[in-house]
C-alpha cells in the first residue's frame, strides 16, 4: 500500500508539473465556463421547469450544453492522463529501475490510476463548483435534492472518465510506443462518441425493417448502450432530470397514470443502476486485463 501511495503522489506532482495537464485544464475550464454562461441564460429564460440542474443540461442553442462537453470531451482528459502511463517509463528505461525496488507491479498500476483519478476528481468538482458558483452568484440557489444530484452527477462523471483512464492505461501496457497507445485510445473514443450511435441504428434497421416497431427501437437502444458514451449520457440525464421516469420506450396507456412530479434521487438512481454497474464493470475489465498482462510482461529495457 505504501508503494501505491508513493507512486501515486509522485505521479500527481508529475501531472501538475506538465504543460499537457495545464493545457487540458484550461480548455476544459473555458469550455465549462462558456457552457455555464449559456446554461444560466437558459435557466433564466426557462418557464416551465426552473431546476438548478438545468444549468448543466440546457443551453440557449448557440453551443451544446455543459453535459455534452463532458460526455464527448471528458474522455480526452482520461486518455491524456493514462495513455503513456507504462510505456513512457518503459521507453525511458525507468520501469526496470522502478520495479527493482520493493514494489509490487500492481502497485505501479494502482498508483498511476489513483493519481489520474485524483486529477479527474479535482477537475470534475472544480468545474461543477465553478459553474454552480457562477449561478449562485446571479441568484440561482440549488435545493438539497439538487445538491445531492450534483454530487451523484460528479461521481458518475468521475467514474466515466476513470473508465477512459483505465482503458488508455491498458493500452499503455499493451503497446510499446506512446504514439500507438494514444492513437488506439483516440480511435476507441471517436468510434463510441461519434460512430456507434448511427451504426447501432443501421444494424437495428437492417435486422428489423419495421421502423416504428417497438422491437426495432428496443434493439437500437440496447445496441447503443454497448457504448460507454451512451451509458453515461443516459445515466446523467436521468440524474439531472428529476422528472425523468423511463429510459425505455413505454406504451402511451402506461403514461396515462403518470403524474409528472419530480422523483426523489433514490428513485432516479434505481432507474440507472444498470448503467452505473455497467460503467463500473468496464473499469474493472480494463483494470483486470491490465493486471494480468502487466504482471506477466517482460520489463527489460
Amino acid at each position: 500500500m505504501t508503494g501505491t501511495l508513493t507512486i501515486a503522489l509522485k505521479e500527481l506532482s508529475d501531472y501538475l508539473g506538465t504543460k499537457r495537464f495545464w493545457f487540458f485544464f484550461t480548455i476544459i475550464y473555458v469550455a465549462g465556463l462558456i457552457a455555464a454562461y449559456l446554461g444560466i441564460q437558459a435557466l433564466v429564460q426557462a418557464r416551465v421547469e426552473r431546476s438548478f440542474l438545468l444549468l448543466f443540461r440546457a443551453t440557449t442553442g448557440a453551443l451544446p450544453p455543459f453535459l455534452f462537453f463532458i460526455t464527448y470531451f471528458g474522455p480526452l482528459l482520461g486518455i491524456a492522463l493514462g495513455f503513456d502511463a507504462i510505456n513512457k517509463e518503459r521507453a525511458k528505461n525507468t520501469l526496470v529501475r522502478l520495479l527493482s525496488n520493493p514494489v509490487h507491479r500492481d502497485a505501479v498500476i494502482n498508483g498511476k490510476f489513483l493519481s489520474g483519478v485524483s486529477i479527474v476528481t479535482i477537475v470534475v468538482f472544480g468545474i461543477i463548483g465553478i459553474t454552480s458558483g457562477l449561478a449562485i452568484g446571479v441568484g440561482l440557489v440549488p435545493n438539497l435534492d439538487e445538491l445531492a444530484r450534483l454530487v451523484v452527477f460528479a461521481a458518475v462523471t468521475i467514474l466515466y472518465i476513470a473508465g477512459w483512464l483505465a482503458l488508455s492505461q491498458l493500452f499503455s501496457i499493451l503497446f510499446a510506443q506512446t504514439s500507438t497507445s494514444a492513437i488506439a485510445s483516440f480511435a476507441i473514443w471517436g468510434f463510441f462518441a461519434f460512430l456507434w450511435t448511427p451504426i447501432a441504428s443501421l444494424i437495428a434497421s437492417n435486422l428489423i425493417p419495421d421502423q416504428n416497431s417497438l422491437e426495432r427501437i428496443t434493439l437500437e437502444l440496447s445496441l447503443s448502450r454497448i457504448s460507454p458514451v451512451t451509458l453515461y449520457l443516459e445515466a446523467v440525464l436521468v440524474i439531472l432530470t428529476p422528472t425523468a421516469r423511463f429510459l425505455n420506450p413505454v406504451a402511451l396507456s402506461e403514461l396515462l397514470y403518470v403524474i409528472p412530479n419530480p422523483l426523489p434521487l433514490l428513485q432516479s438512481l434505481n432507474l440507472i443502476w444498470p448503467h452505473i454497474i455497467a460503467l463500473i464493470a468496464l473499469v474493472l475489465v480494463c483494470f483486470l486485463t491490465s493486471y494480468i498482462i502487466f504482471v506477466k510482461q517482460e520489463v527489460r529495457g
Partner: protein
Amino acid sequence: MQPAIQTWGLTKKYGDLVAVDSLDLEVEQGEIYGFLGPNGAGKTTTILMLLGLTEPTSGRLRVLGYDPLREPLKLKRLVGYLPENLGFYDDMTAKQNLLYTAKLNGISFVEAERRITSLLGVLGLSDAADKKVSTFSKGMKQRLGMADVLLKDPQLLLLDEPTTGIDPEGVRQILDIIVDCRAKGKTVLISSHLLYQVQKICDRVGIFVKGRLIASGTIQHLGREVIAGDKFVVEAEVPDATPALEETLKGLEGVIKVAKAGPTLTIECKSDIRGVIAKTIVTSGYTLTQIRSQEYALDEIYAKYFEGEPKA
C-alpha cells in the same frame, strides 16, 4: 555460510532462442564476481531472473536465501540493481530521483536526506544534486545510478555493465566504490564485456557465451585451465642463460618444456615448482634476476575460448 546466489539448471527461452542455457552459478557472500561475456550472451537476462523481474523457463534459483519469484519484495529490499540502460525521471532533479527511490524502499525522509547528501558527495555529484537529470552526461547518470543502488544499503549488488560509456576517471571511481562494498561485506555481481576494467577487482569470474557459462573461477585458475591446458607456466629472467641451463632445467622432475626468448626462460611444469627451478638456476652458477608464475590476462582467456567456439 550459504552462497549469496545459487542457481541450478537455470534456463530462459524466448521462443526458439535460448537466452540462458541451464546455468549453474554460485556466488559466495562477500565476493566480487565478474560475469563476463560479449553482448547478447544472456548476462542481463540472468540478472533479471535473479531479481525476479523475468520468469525462468526452467531451473531453480536462490538469492540471499529467497526464491525471487515467491518473495520478490523481501529480496528487492536487499538487492541493489544497476540496469545497463539506466533511466531516470528527466524532469526531476538528481536528489528528487533518489528521494523517490528512498521512499519506495521505506527509508525515512531524514535518513534518506542524510544518505543522499553523503552518497552524492562520495560520487562527486554534490554540485549537481538540484539539477534536472536531463542535463546530466552519461557518466554523471552512471554515477547517479550507483548512488541509487547504494541508497538502500543492499547486501547484494547486481551491476549490469556499470563502466560502459564513461571516462577512465569515472571508471576508476566506480571500481573503487565496488571494492569498498566488498570491504563492507557486500556481495557484488558485475556484468561486463570490458575485461581489463573488471579483472582488476574480481575475486572470481564466469565466462558466459551464448547463454552458457563455459568457465568459472579465479582468473589464475581459468588461465591455467584454458591457455596452459592445466599446466603451470613459470617465467624466469636469466640474462646469462645458456642452452646448457635449458637442458638442466628440462631434466628436472615435473618440467615439461623450456623455451627461451631473450633473457626470459618460459618453463612449463606440472605444478608450481618455482622454488626448485630458482635453486637449480642459482646453484648452476647463473644470475636469476626474477622468477614468477605467468599472469593471465582475461582477454587472452577470452580470446582462447572464442577460438574454440565454432563461428555460427
